[in-house]
């Protein structure tokens, strides 16, 4: 590492950064929040999430069904019912995950918030 080496590369980096900033006018400068994992992770995160949401809800449904069967001695009916309810809940989770509700397997959403910011990192939700 000589003395000359860092400064040209830093200037070069600066220029490239400025160019990159110009290409993205939607991001204001004050939104400089260090690493933005959404750019790297949004797609990957959603992709990793979908399958697991589906499986988790189904597993919970089956678990609840088996427990109820055990308590009520209704084998196998509760299992059958809750298998379908669990898969419905899984679809609900996935639907919510992909349809702009953000990460939340949310319930009753603030309508104003949904309209305002389908993405993360926008305005903070004001208290209701």
């Amino acid at each position, binding site marked *: 590492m000589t003395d000359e080496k860092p400064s040209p590369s830093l200037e070069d980096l600066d220029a490239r950064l400025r160019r990159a900033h110009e290409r993205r006018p939607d991001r204001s400068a004050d939104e400089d*929040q*260090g*690493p933005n*994992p959404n750019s*790297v*992770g949004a797609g*990957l*995160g959603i992709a*990793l*999430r979908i399958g*697991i*949401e589906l*499986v*988790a*809800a189904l*597993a*919970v*449904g089956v678990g*609840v069904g088996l427990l109820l069967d055990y308590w009520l001695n209704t084998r196998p009916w509760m299992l059958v019912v*809750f298998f379908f*309810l*669990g898969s*419905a*809940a*899984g679809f*609900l*989770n996935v639907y919510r995950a992909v349809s702009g509700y*953000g*990460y*939340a*397997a*949310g*319930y*009753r959403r*603030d309508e104003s918030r949904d309209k305002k910011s389908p993405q*993360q*990192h*926008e305005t*903070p*939700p*004001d*208290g*209701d």
Partner: protein
Amino acid sequence: MADAGAGESHSPLAQFMIKKIIPLEIGGVDVSYTNSALAMTVAVIAVSVFLIFGMRRGALVPGRWQVVAEMSYEFVANMIRDNVGQEGRRYFPFIFTLFMFIFAGNLIGMIPYSFTYTSHLIVTFGLAAVVFIGVTIIGFAKHGFHFFHFFLPHGVPWFLAWLIIPIEILSYLSRPVSLSLRLFANMTAGHTMMKVFAGFIFVLGVAGVAPLVMVVALTGLEIIIAFLQAYVFAILTCVYLNDALHMH
């Protein structure tokens, strides 16, 4: 991990084995100090050292170490501000601790011969259960029995309520499961895959360069995933907290 020696076990799953370091039993319950507990201790000490010594000088113009410490603080603070709002600030210590604990655990797992405690379902489920129970209690404390309105979305016709309510309850109950399963599955799958590819390197001789390249690439991917999963865990905690705080 990637370069577990030939003398050791060849199973790609051997890296997840719990080994007792200090056997201990209190009242018939096995509370031995294991390699998992050791990794957690190391993580807690590492994070504490990182933050305490990073901020020791508290300089106005921060050095590199201080910048990283401040960045991690701001990162979580912004996450909470964006996803929960002002009311979420009092939960900052918990979410920050959660994030740093998971992140440190994932990164410590990247060191060869170490142990990834986030690759154990009981650890991640423990964390997720704390979040789930905590958020439920906060929701109850804030809204009382109004909390049950959570399970009937606005505008559902009455004749569908009998179907929607169980589905919503199951969906709510699946939160800790999906939260813990996601972290566990990602860490376990990633580390297993790395070990499997690493196992091919010596077997294939010269052609082992191909899996070697793959392992190098996977190591980078795993570091991304280490961060991403800690981030997802923390942000989902924020989102759940927001649901509990700002419910109608």
